[in-house]
């Protein structure tokens, strides 16, 4: 039985949620159920870090579209963010090709649906296609864990499959693609992953398999890894605990929720009048 709407768009977050806990995927993306329990114990600090991350990403976007660094620096009131921005200016763009697309989104077909990737920065050179994801996390995850994350899988795959229009009508060879995580809070430490045709093929099989599995599912079971439930807002709905887990132990602080969820629609001014 297929529960997916015809115009469903997969993303690395939704697929990661599915892999982590099918029930969470069902509640969040299929039923679109909101459940406003805390995600972590210290919500104020969580909010502060989220705001810092958002501010940092916005600064980099502004810089990428040509606003002078000194003007941007003058507007930073948070010392940590200023430090991150200085680090970025010092080494964030080292070896980054000149044709740059900040905050760029791409979709590609995936089964009967589409798969979306939102890149912080996409940079293309003659023989290189670099995806950069700016990270403001306090922890740098282990390389093997990063490699296994759906973000690494999805971003490289989407660019290889859907980058043609950006490359003069020619597909970008997987071998030219590099995915780079850049850690602002760790002096610009990088964790980079190359790509190749074999991995592209393996990723295609994996992602298509996931979608088929979701389409065929009768039930969406809870995760077996109960530790995840401490950071999931649905924990009380699933009867998996009362209290949110510790913020300090959460490694994924950069991508706790879809930032899309935070967008506010200023068009509503016109809607309200009706």
């Amino acid at each position, binding site marked *: 039985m297929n529960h997916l*709407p*015809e*115009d*469903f*768009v997969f993303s690395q977050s939704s697929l990661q949620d599915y892999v982590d806990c099918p029930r969470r995927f069902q509640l969040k993306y299929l*039923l*679109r*159920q*909101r*459940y*406003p*329990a*805390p995600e972590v114990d210290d*919500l*104020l600090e969580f909010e502060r870090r989220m705001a810092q991350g958002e501010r940092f990403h*916005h600064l980099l*976007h*502004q810089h990428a*579209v*040509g*606003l002078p660094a000194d*003007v*941007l620096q*003058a*507007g930073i*009131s948070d010392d940590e963010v200023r430090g991150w921005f200085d680090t970025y200016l010092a080494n964030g763009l080292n070896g980054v090709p000149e044709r740059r*697309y900040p905050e*760029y*989104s*791409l*979709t*590609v*077909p995936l089964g009967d*649906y*589409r798969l*979306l990737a939102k890149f912080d920065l996409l940079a293309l050179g003659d023989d290189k296609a670099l995806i950069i994801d700016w990270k403001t996390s306090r922890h740098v995850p282990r390389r093997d864990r990063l490699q296994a994350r759906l973000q690494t899988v999805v971003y490289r795959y989407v660019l290889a499959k*859907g980058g*043609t*229009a*950006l490359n003069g*009508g020619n597909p970008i060879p997987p071998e030219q693609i590099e995915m780079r995580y850049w850690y602002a809070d760790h002096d610009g430490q990088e964790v980079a992953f190359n790509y190749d045709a074999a991995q592209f093929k393996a990723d295609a099989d994996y992602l298509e398999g996931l979608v088929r599995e979701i389409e065929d599912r009768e039930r969406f079971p809870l995760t077996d890894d109960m530790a995840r439930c401490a950071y999931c*807002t649905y*924990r*009380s*709905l699933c*009867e998996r605990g*009362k*209290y*949110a887990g510790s913020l300090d132990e959460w490694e994924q602080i950069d991508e706790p929720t879809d930032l899309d969820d935070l967008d*506010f*629609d*200023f*068009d*509503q*001014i*016109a*809607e*309200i*009048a*009706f």
Partner: protein
Amino acid sequence: MRLLKDQQRVASEHLDTRLYLDGLAGTGKTTAAIERVKTLIRNGVPASSILIWVPQATLAIPYRQALQRARIDADTNVPTTTIGKLAYDMVKLFWPMIANKKELGFQQSEQSNQIEDPHFLSLELVQYYMTRHLGPEIDTNDYFNSVHISRNRLYTQIVDNLNKAALVGFAPDTIGDRLKSALGESVEQSFIYDDAQKSAAKFRELCLQHNLLDFSLQVELFVKHLWPLKEVQRYLTSNFRHLIVDNIEEDTPASHDILRDWLPQTDSALLINDSGGGYRRFLGADPINAAELRDLCQVHITLDNHRVMSKELEALHDELAFSLHQTNDMPDSDVDARDAIAYAPDISYQPQMITWAAESIAALVHEQGVPPREIVIMAPYMPDALRFSLQKELDLQLVPHRSHRPSRALREETASRTLLTLARLAHPQWNLPANKFDVANMLAAAITELDLIRARLLADVLYRQGKLAPFTGITNDALTQRITFDLGMRYQTLFDWLQEYQSQDALPLDIFFSKLFGEVLSQPGFGFHGQTDAANVAANLIDSAQAFRQTISEIEPNLDIPVEYVKMVEEGVIANQYLRDWEDDKRDAVLIAPAYTFLLANQPVDYQFWLNVGSSGWAQRLYQPLTHPYVLSRQWQSGRRWTDDDEVRTDEQTLAYLALGLVRRCRKQIYLGFSQYSEQGYEQRGDLLMAIQTMLRRLNRSEANA
């Protein structure tokens, strides 16, 4: 859907030039435009270099859905925008380039070069600032003393005037003079417009002082100060090489002005004009200004094959157009327009009309297999009483329904009342004690299986002097047994949680709500557990409280924010309307909506039910004593006076546009609901009813003559 020849031309020809497409609603303009976008993408154009521009966000939904479903082996993620979104995005991105411009009047730090970030105001925060800062000003100066409308409606019109200034392109300090010169015949009316001007100026001053950007200021900054900068223009015109601009007639001069500059810089563009449209006039839409963009396009195509209306509906459209004086040509059709309508038998009162509508819908759904989503019920206005009666009758008929109208005020929802009462109990320092009635209701809602009678007993015994007492404090055994040990322990859990909370520093209100929801109320045995609607309401309340805190705390750090928030919710200023859920409501359900809301969503249906056909509201504008959509438009000639003839003419035009626009968005049949007396007991003989009766008499006569 197979495309007709002219649609094909739009979809696949003139891909390197500017194309102007017009035609009535239902002739397939948007369908052709969607196909054009697909063709561009198939031809190798990056989806990200195409921009779909619409006057309101909902009009982009058909594009998004079609492109998400498209079987194209390339990126189809085409951005969509409105003038509001574009202004917001550009101001946010390029703010440092204008923040320190002295002529804009923003207060920036004089000690350093530091640029302070702006605060983007949602409509609810605009209402808040108006209430807090403008309200006392209005009271002190006795502004608007001859206007008898609610404060919130007053504020809405002040906002509306500022928005018009930005969207139409006149200086906000000329609002009062413009209105006075056209409408200020009496001294009293002139005073009203003077007061409207002073209020708008006061609000704008407040915004500039604190870097608050309401919708009007965002648009003004974008149009007047950012768009002229070469960096901004280059950013937009180099990123978006292909424009698809739909419903230009519903858009505003601000959009048209930008497009006038932008169009010559594109690789291709498609401008779409709905020839019979212009429904958003009261929001600044200007179809005359829009039509001038035609001259910037090299190719013009008109679509004239109706692809929505049946032959009978086409006949009805033409007959109605004749009755509404939109054409002098007597309609000549080989089918009977009367077959496109059904109407109620003689009905005197509104409840009978509602029952008739619900029964007719039930027959369509249950006997003829019509999907509920293919039915819409509308009226010129959709007050709560009418909406509620319709919902009740449809429930009785087992017909699913949805309401295209902002949901109830959050303060009226049980879930938010429960959270707000608990917040008062947890914060005795606010000096806002809950009343016993609210405490009993809170307990009934918070503890599963606790009925209201026992909740009242608990409140009577355990709620004293603004404080709850522990369940273990009850000494009356009979009472303990009546409550039951199990329910008593749940009460105790809630009590203990509140006690524990009070032993620590108070949290921001939204965080307090979230923890209370997660740690108690949504746990098994408590009232929100598994209650998805309650969870949605709680989430909306938390969002609202968080947005309030985040903005207000930066501007007024000394304000007692939680207390202010609770007061504002109770007064209906904050959390009064919530719009986040309905836009994505795709349920297969009958839609209940005001007529204009349906019209502007631009989604045709098989069956329409027009209720209160005798109401004069189909032709009249809303009563807005502080503003005027025609006078505050770019088409208004300076120095002209608004006359009674203007009023009659625009009412006639309004009715014709609305009625014919609705017919064009119907595929099969229109049910006309009419009751002799209105809700208030007045006889109903509005212009729409008159026009329909004239039409029917004419058709009956010609049938008799034949």
